[in-house]
């Protein structure tokens, strides 16, 4: 098992340990490279017009992506309205109403659903909404994003409810509270910080998705007519502007990239700060 003399073994040790450290530095530095590029190119291109004006046709300089910002908020908002309560309730079942056969199955399927490529989830929303209504719509995009959000929120809710000590539940039941009252007034409030964290992370994840929106919410160069019409979104705008052959569109894509990553990172850091302040009950 330990071959060679001590000097050789020690130098192998030193070399390999430094290699792992270098790999870590490489991996982490990609984050700063990405942020650096976005701040540099995006910062130069970002101006007030970006938040207030509509995109201009190719060839004209200027314009903004106000419609895509509002469109993203609409699509993600509706997806959250569907996905958050859905995942929350399913998570409560997994954590509080344990049964030996069904819960492990739901858990496993939720994890699989979470791993399905987002573009395939987009195909589902297309068959369910776009085909029957014969129109691309923001709602179809919301359905696709909700289907991605549900397994995330379910598993996070379950995980944080499980961290609530059993003794709290027993205390409530011993005082005569019914099971659902125990869940509603003791268990869920105790796990609420963690659940909130999970929800914010889930929303941050779907807010950056573009693949499932390409053929559901589609895109729109103008103000959309509400959730039943094709709706612009920031991620799809970044894609369509980045691959177009116009310099001014590339400039807009960088600006949109900076805004999108700003929102995603702020949500992530905020969520982890909530979590860092701890679950509101001592762990058993």
């Amino acid at each position, binding site marked *: 098992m330990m071959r060679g003399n001590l000097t050789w*073994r020690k130098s192998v040790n030193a070399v390999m340990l430094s290699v*792992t450290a270098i790999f870590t530095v490489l*991996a982490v530095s990609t984050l700063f490279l990405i942020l650096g590029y976005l701040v540099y190119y995006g910062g130069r291109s970002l101006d007030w017009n970006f938040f207030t004006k509509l995109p201009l046709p190719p060839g004209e300089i200027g314009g903004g992506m106000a419609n895509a910002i509002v469109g993203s908020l609409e699509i993600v908002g509706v997806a959250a309205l569907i996905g958050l309560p859905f995942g929350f309730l399913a998570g409560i079942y997994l954590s509080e109403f344990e049964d030996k056969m069904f819960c492990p199955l739901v858990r496993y399927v939720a994890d699989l659903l979470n791993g399905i490529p987002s*573009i395939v989830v987009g195909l589902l929303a297309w068959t369910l909404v776009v085909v029957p209504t014969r129109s691309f719509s923001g709602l179809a995009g919301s359905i696709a994003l909700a289907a991605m959000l549900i397994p995330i929120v379910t598993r996070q809710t379950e995980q944080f409810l499980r961290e609530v000590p059993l003794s709290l539940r027993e205390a409530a039941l011993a005082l005569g509270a*019914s099971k659902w009252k125990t869940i509603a007034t003791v268990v869920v409030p105790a796990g609420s910080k963690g659940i909130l964290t999970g929800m914010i992370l889930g929303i941050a994840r779907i807010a950056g998705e573009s693949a499932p929106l390409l053929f559901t919410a589609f895109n729109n160069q103008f103000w959309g007519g509400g959730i039943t019409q094709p709706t612009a979104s920031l991620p799809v705008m970044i894609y369509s502007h980045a691959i177009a052959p116009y310099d001014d569109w590339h400039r807009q894509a960088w600006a949109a990239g900076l805004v999108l990553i700003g929102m995603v990172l702020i949500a992530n850091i905020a969520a982890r700060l909530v979590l860092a302040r701890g679950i509101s009950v001592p762990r058993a």
Partner: protein
Amino acid sequence: MATPAVADTTATRRQTTQTGDIAARLITLAFAASIILITLLLVWQLWSQSAPTRHKFGLAFLFSSTWNPVTEEFGALPFVYGTVVTSVLALLISVPLGLGSAIFLAELAPAGISNTLTFLIELLAAIPSVIYGLLALFTLVPLMRDYGEPFLKSTLGFLPLFKGPVYGFGLLTGGMVLSIMTIPFIISVSREALLAVPREQREAALALGATRWESTWQIVVPYAKLGILGSIFLGLARALGETMAVTMVIGNDPKIVASLFAPGYSIAAVIANEFSEATGRVYQSALIELGLVLFLLTIIINGFARLMILATTKKGSKR
């Protein structure tokens, strides 16, 4: 005479609590069961909506390399090839890098540094795919075209893999972007698996005179190997299904060429590019069948990954 009244209210209260409990159970059960229903619905929709091409081409769909929407001849082979080649390339880079970093974070770095770096790695995993695509398109593609690929051509050009014209867009660039995107997943899951190895294992090895590296490489890593394999499979499933970043750099050309410099196409990329403009039942059905192929690929790989991760995290306890 108060006793019967008290008994009455307790009885009604018990009844209402029971109804409340049953209602709560059924309502939450309905939502939990719906997760399975959504997944089944997904399978059913992909299966039924791809019927035209499944009937027309049968299994030949998987092995044909023609993709011609005008004559309505469709074959999946170039897309499967592009997807598999870019994903394998990605793993060749991301597995050593990811595993090395996970070893550093789990075994060597002090807890404070390890937690901070892991937090940064998790932020990396949260960056939207289209942002990776944006950066790759404007930085990695020119770099590969002007420096990376000419260098490979001059040093390893005798291999068929590194022959032919250099574009910047192609399988190699696609694989590199995917490797950057899969590294965070491999790091965080492998790190968890390594942390789940009992402390005594390390202490025993060190007490026998092993160096730090020997204890890690010969004792801890083999102990956690299922979890590490699971992380690699998870990374592979991510890479196979990754859409936007690949679409932006792979070149979008449905050909099978030995050279890694050549433009290719992936399953996810062709769906992203062509689906919203696909006209005709057969064309749409062909793209949906590609989606079905991608779905099956990722679900099988994910299924294995989850089982492996379950097996290791149950085996050990946290440090």
